[in-house]
């Protein structure tokens, strides 16, 4: 059994982990840089250790200091949160060598999924659908055959390529020859290498990810999907569970594929398998072998505390639920509240003069900030997450609209006004968006 958890992170996720540990009656150690001495999780932890100066590489990324902090406090487990050392296989190994439980998967699994090539190979082996593509180079002889196999539209890409050069889309067979020849010519001109390969082309995919938890002994469950298509510069901004695009059959089908894959690999801990989704098909992107920022929307619709599950399986206690006990109830949306200008997204560090979280039914706020808290300029700008739950997506959005009007963060700029705009947007209300939607919207795209 784990008796004392050191939380190797900061901000809202450090507080999130602390809350779960407290609920399980496990003692907590907060570690922090000198910039975070006043952080909420430091105040609420049973013990705290300052591990270095503000720069992350000298504190939150400094494995040596964190292990030393375990030693002097007697912590027998480490929860890495997300980011920082959460997907660092070496960290997991060093902890293991010191007899400290890493609350996460094995170093081997972190490594396997941390490399794009081995991750995709593993996904294929485990039966997880990937983007179909040519095995190797495409030539004038096999181009049509391969394209037909993959199915149109297809994308022809330079094997030496990057940055969009030597990349052409063929929507139908009629476009194929021209696309193939242009791609080859551009590739040769740009890279001195005319070799090209082929992939399925996804024009307007959604980002849909499946939450899984495994016990490391061959048992694993899925907790449905999250739709994280609303992104800005590959940063998720608004997440929903369930996805407005999936039906129950699709959900349970892809969920079962992922759970089965995790059983097969004897995965331990929480993980997320990310897909692009278009026209009813899922295409594996990557697997995150850690808790994710947006995990609370899954908790909202399942009532299952994912950090509790992480701690349980790390302790060898196994999962608290079986797949058939999991019920998906209603709809949840998370808005990431960043200390940023809601139009320009320029960071806005500073002192929060007033902070008043919204309340009422179906509202959850995960945030380490408080009135008087000074946001340090050294770390990312996420200062809190607003999670709203309703019996239906419509009820959830109506509640979100109400809640956004109540949320007060004064003294700095936040992204709250962006969400006030989004909850009125017709595309958002219909759930009709893809991974390009938010960028277009922010650029003033005509379609919105």
């Amino acid at each position: 059994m784990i008796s004392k958890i050191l939380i190797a992170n900061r901000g809202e996720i450090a507080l999130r982990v602390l809350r779960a540990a407290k609920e399980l009656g496990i003692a907590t150690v907060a570690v922090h840089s000198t910039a975070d001495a006043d952080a909420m999780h430091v105040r609420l932890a049973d013990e705290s250790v300052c591990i270095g100066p503000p720069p992350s590489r000298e504190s939150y990324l400094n494995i040596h200091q964190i292990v030393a902090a375990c030693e002097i406090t007697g912590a027998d487990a480490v929860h890495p949160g997300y980011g920082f050392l959460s997907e660092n296989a070496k960290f997991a190994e060093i902890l293991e060598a010191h007899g400290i439980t890493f609350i996460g998967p094995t170093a081997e699994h972190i490594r396997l999924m941390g490399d794009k090539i081995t991750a995709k190979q593993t996904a294929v082996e485990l039966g997880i659908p990937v983007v179909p593509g040519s095995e190797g180079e495409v030539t004038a002889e096999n181009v049509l055959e391969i394209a037909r196999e993959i199915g149109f539209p297809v994308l022809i890409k330079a094997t030496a390529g990057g940055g969009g050069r030597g990349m052409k889309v063929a929507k139908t067979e009629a476009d194929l020859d021209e696309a193939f020849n242009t791609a080859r010519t551009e590739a040769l001109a740009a890279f001195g290498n005319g070799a090209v390969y082929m992939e399925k082309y996804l024009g307007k995919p959604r980002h849909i990810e499946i939450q899984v938890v495994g016990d490391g002994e061959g048992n694993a469950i899925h907790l449905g999907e999250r739709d994280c298509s609303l992104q800005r510069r590959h940063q998720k901004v608004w997440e929903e569970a369930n996805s407005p695009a999936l039906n129950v059959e699709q959900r349970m089908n892809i969920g079962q594929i992922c759970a089965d894959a995790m059983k097969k690999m004897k995965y331990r801990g929480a993980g997320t398998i990310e897909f692009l989704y278009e026209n009813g098909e899922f295409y594996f992107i990557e697997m995150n072998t850690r808790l994710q920022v947006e995990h609370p929307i899954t908790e909202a619709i399942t009532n299952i505390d994912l950090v509790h599950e992480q701690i349980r399986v790390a302790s060898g206690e196994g999962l608290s639920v079986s797949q058939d006990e999991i019920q998906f109830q209603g709809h949840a949306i998370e808005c990431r509240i960043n200390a940023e200008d809601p139009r320009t997204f320029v960071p806005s560090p500073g002192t929060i003069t007033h902070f008043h979280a919204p309340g009422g039914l179906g509202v959850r706020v995960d945030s380490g900030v408080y009135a008087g808290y000074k946001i340090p300029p050294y770390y990312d700008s996420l200062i809190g997450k607003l999670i709203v739950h309703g019996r239906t997506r419509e009820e959830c959005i109506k509640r979100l609209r109400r809640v956004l009007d109540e949320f007060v963060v004064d003294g700095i700029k936040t992204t709250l006004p962006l969400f006030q705009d989004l909850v009125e947007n017709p595309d958002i209300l219909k759930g009709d968006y893809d991974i390009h939607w938010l960028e277009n919207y922010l650029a003033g795209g005509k379609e919105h």
Partner: protein
Amino acid sequence: MSEKKNGIDKGLIRDLADILNDTDLTEIEVEQDDLRIRVSRASTTQYVQAPIAAAAPIAAAAVAAAPAAAAPVAAADNKNAITAPMVGTAYLAPAPGAKAFIEVGATVKEGQTLLIIEAMKTMNQIPAPRSGKVTEILITDGQPVEYGQPLVIVE
């Protein structure tokens, strides 16, 4: 690692911080005999000086229920304090029972070992960053220390 109580009245500091918060003043300074306490609102850290160099800072803001678990970083404001460059267990002597590296009143030279911090089974010698006289040793043998914690005062 905020269990440094060596004679400082933590309750008094907390009371002053409460007064500061309650009254919304920006600063309170209290001086009596050789004790001077200043708590302020403008900066995020408040500090205490004399008779000892280290004390737990009082949180400026709301969390009354929080245990006093903040770091004694502000004590590094004492310019003469040598602070811990790493987390670990501090030892004053090279081996159990051996003579201590330094004692109060001793003169040390730049580069001379002041103490050892053990972390991850490694003994790290902490050298004096400058020459001077040891006026105070703020830790005991075998005490866990955190980053930035004042160890020794060299004047």
